[in-house]
C-alpha cells in the first residue's frame, strides 16, 4: 500500500475556479456591464468590425457582440448547469440502485442503458426536441433523457465495487438499513468519478447545444447563446470573423475552466478518469 498522499495541485484548481467564477460574475453582472441591449437591432450598424464603439463588433442585425457574449454567459452557464445537473442526479440514483440491488432491476436497467447507448444520439435529441418544440426546456429534457446513461454506468460500476468493500460489509454487520448504506456510505465514495466526468460533460452539453443550433433547432431567437451565435455567424465567417470568434472563444475558455476544475477534482479525489 503506497500511502502516497495525492497532493492536489492548487494551481490547477485555482485557475479553474477563477475562470468559472469570472463567468459567474459576468453572468450576474451582464445587465450592468453590457454596453448595449443584447437583442437591440441597429440596421445602420450591421457587420461592424470591432471598434471602440463596439468592442467585439456587431452582427448582421447590428447587435453588439460584446453585449450578446456577456448576456450569453447567463444562458450558457445555465445550460451547462442544468444540462449536467439533471443527468447527474438521475443517473446517479438509477446507477446506484441498479448496482446496489442487482438482480432483475439491474438487468432491466442495464438493457435500457444498452438501448439508449445503441440509439443514435441525434435521433433521440432531435426527436425529443421536435416533439417538445425547440427551446431550452426541451433541450434540458432531451439532455436529461439521454445524458443520465453515462452517469448511471459510472456510478453503477463504482457501487458494484464498493458494495463488496469491507466497510460496506461492516455497515451491514452493524445493522444499518440498506438505504443508509447505499446513500450515506457507498454513494459519497462513488460519486467522485462522476463529479470529474461532469466537468467535461458540461463542455459536451454546450457543444451539443451548438450542434442542435446548427441543425436549426436551437434556442429561441433572439436569445443570445454562444452556440447559436457561432452557428448563425458562421455564414459570415469570411466577411465578419468576429461574429463567431468571440462566442467561440467564450466556449473554449469556459471549457478550459471546466476541464481545469475537473482535473483538479480528479487528482484531489484520486480518481483516474
Amino acid at each position: 500500500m503506497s500511502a502516497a498522499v495525492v497532493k492536489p495541485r492548487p494551481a490547477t484548481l485555482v485557475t479553474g475556479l477563477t475562470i468559472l467564477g469570472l463567468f459567474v460574475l459576468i453572468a450576474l453582472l451582464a445587465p450592468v456591464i453590457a454596453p448595449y441591449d443584447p437583442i437591440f437591432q441597429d440596421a445602420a450598424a450591421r457587420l461592424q468590425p470591432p471598434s471602440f464603439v463596439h468592442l467585439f463588433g456587431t452582427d448582421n442585425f447590428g447587435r453588439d457582440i460584446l453585449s450578446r457574449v456577456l448576456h450569453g454567459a447567463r444562458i450558457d452557464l445555465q445550460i451547462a448547469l442544468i444540462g449536467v445537473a439533471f443527468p447527474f442526479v438521475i443517473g446517479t440514483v438509477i446507477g446506484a440502485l441498479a448496482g446496489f440491488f442487482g438482480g432483475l432491476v439491474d438487468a432491466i436497467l442495464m438493457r435500457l442503458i444498452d438501448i439508449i447507448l445503441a440509439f443514435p444520439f441525434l435521433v433521440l435529441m432531435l426527436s425529443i426536441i421536435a416533439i417538445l418544440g425547440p427551446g431550452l426546456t426541451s433541450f434540458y429534457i432531451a439532455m436529461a433523457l439521454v445524458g443520465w446513461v453515462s452517469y448511471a454506468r459510472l456510478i453503477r460500476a463504482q457501487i458494484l465495487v464498493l458494495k463488496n468493500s469491507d466497510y460496506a460489509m461492516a455497515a451491514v454487520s452493524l445493522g444499518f438499513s440498506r438505504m443508509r448504506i447505499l446513500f450515506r456510505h457507498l454513494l459519497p465514495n462513488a460519486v467522485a468519478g462522476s463529479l470529474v466526468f461532469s466537468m467535461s460533460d458540461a463542455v459536451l452539453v454546450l457543444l451539443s447545444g451548438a450542434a442542435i443550433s446548427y441543425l436549426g433547432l436551437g434556442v429561441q431567437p433572439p436569445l443570445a447563446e454562444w452556440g447559436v451565435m457561432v452557428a448563425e455567424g458562421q455564414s459570415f465567417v469570411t466577411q465578419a470573423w468576429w461574429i463567431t470568434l468571440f462566442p467561440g472563444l467564450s466556449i473554449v475558455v469556459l471549457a478550459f475552466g471546466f476541464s481545469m476544475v475537473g482535473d483538479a477534482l480528479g487528482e484531489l479525489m484520486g480518481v483516474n478518469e
Partner: protein
Amino acid sequence: AGVLTIGRTEDSTTFDPIKSAQNVDNWVFSNVFDVLVRVDRTGTKLEPGLAESWTISDDGLTYTFKLRDAKFSDGSPVTAEDAAFSLTRIRDDKGSLWSDSFKIIDTATAADAKTLVVKLKGKSVPFISMMALPNASVLPKAAVEANADAFAEKPIGSGAFTVEEWRRGDRVILKKNPNYWDASHVSLDGVEWIIVPDDNTRILNVQAGQLDAAITVPFSRVAELKKDENLTVRMDPSTREDHMLINHEHGALAKKEVRQALDMAIDKKAIVEAATFGIGEVANSYIPKGALYHYADNLQRPYDPEKAKEMLKAAGAEGLTLNYIVNAGKETDEQIAVLMQQQLAKAGVTVNLQKVDPSQSWNMLVDGDYDVSVMYWTNDILDPDQKTTFTLGHDTNMNYMTRYKNDHVKELVAAARLETDPAKREAMYVELQKIAKDDVNWIDLYYSPYINVTRKNVTNFYQNPLGRFFLEDTVKN
C-alpha cells in the same frame, strides 16, 4: 462544351415526375423531360415545347396538340400516344401527387401519331398553363408500363439531357441527350447536380473552382460574392413572394381593421433592408411583380405604427398578443421574426415567438394552431389562377390556412378561371388584388429574386420566374 457542376442543398427524390411536388426535383425534371408547352424565359408567355402548336375549341373544352418530330433518349419517337398516356397517368395513377389538379381532364387520346386531343370536363382557362408543369412531362409509355420503379431510378425522357448516373445523396449526373430535338442548340456535354447542404461550403466550392455554380445563395452573401472577380452573382426575377399569414379565426384577427393595422405596423422596407440585405423588394400584391396580371399600382399601406396603434384601439384590440410560429432553421425567417417582434411592439402588439421545425409548423398552420406566421409561395404555373384559388378562392385548404372568407372573392375567382378574354381577365385579377389588399387576407411582405452564383466562365445560366433552369442554353467556356 464541358460538364457543368451545380451545387444545391438537397438530393433529388425520384425521377418519376408524378411522384414529386418539390422544386429540387422539378429543376432536374425540366432538364431530362420535355413538356408539351413551355413557359418562356420571362415567365410571362407560353411557347411550344413538344407540341409545335395547339388549338382550343370554341367551347374551351377540347385542346388539340400537334406534336413535333422528337425522340426519346433511347431513340424511340415521341408519339401522341405517349402524351395521352402521361396525362392520363398523372390523373389516375395511385402514386400521383397531382391527381387532384388533373381531374379536370376528361379524356386524353391520340388522334394520330402526332395529334393529341384532350377533352376537359369543364372549361378552364389556366389548363393550358398546367401543361407546362414538369410533373406533366411526356414519358415513354412502353418504358413506364414495363417497370415504373426502374424508370424512376433511371428515366428515359426527351429533354436536353439524360440521367447518366444517380449517386444518391451525392449527385445526379446528366449527359447531353443526342436525341434531343433541339440538340444542336445544347452546348454543355453534361450537368452534375451535386448536393452540398451547407451554404458556406457550397459557395466556397465555387470560389475554389471546384463547382461551376451554386444555387440558393443566402441574401447575406451577395454583397461579398459580387466583389469576387471570378464569380458572377445571378439574380433572376422569381415569383417568390413572402407574406405573413394571419389566422382569421383567432379573436381580434377576424376584424379587417385589426389586420390592416398590423399591415401598417410592419415596416417592410426595414425588413427588406435587414433580412434581404436590400436585395428584395417590398411587395404590394399577392401576384408577384413580373408575373401575369401583376397590379403594379396596388395599394401599399404606409408604415405608421402610431396610426396602427390607434386603429387597434378603435377596434378594441388594444394590448393584442400574437403567437408567431417561426420556421426553425431558416436564417431569414428567424431574422424577420425578431424584427417583426420589435416593430409590432411599437404598435403595442406583443408577439410571442414560437420556433418549431418546418414540418411541424406546416401542421400547426393547417390545424389553425397559430396567430401569425411567415411563409412564402412560388408559382409553378404561369397562370395566376392556381395561387389565387389556393389563397383566396375558398379552396378546401381554408385559403392557404388563413381561414379567409369572402364570398364575392370566391365567385370572382371562379369567374376568372372561365374568362377567355385576356383584357377582361386582367381586370378581374386587378380587382382581386385590390380586394385582397383591402381585406388583408395576409400581409404581403417582399418579392425576392433567385440568387445563384457561377464562375465567370459560365454564361447563360438562368432561371425563369417559375424556377426552371434553362441549361440547354448554358455555356461553359
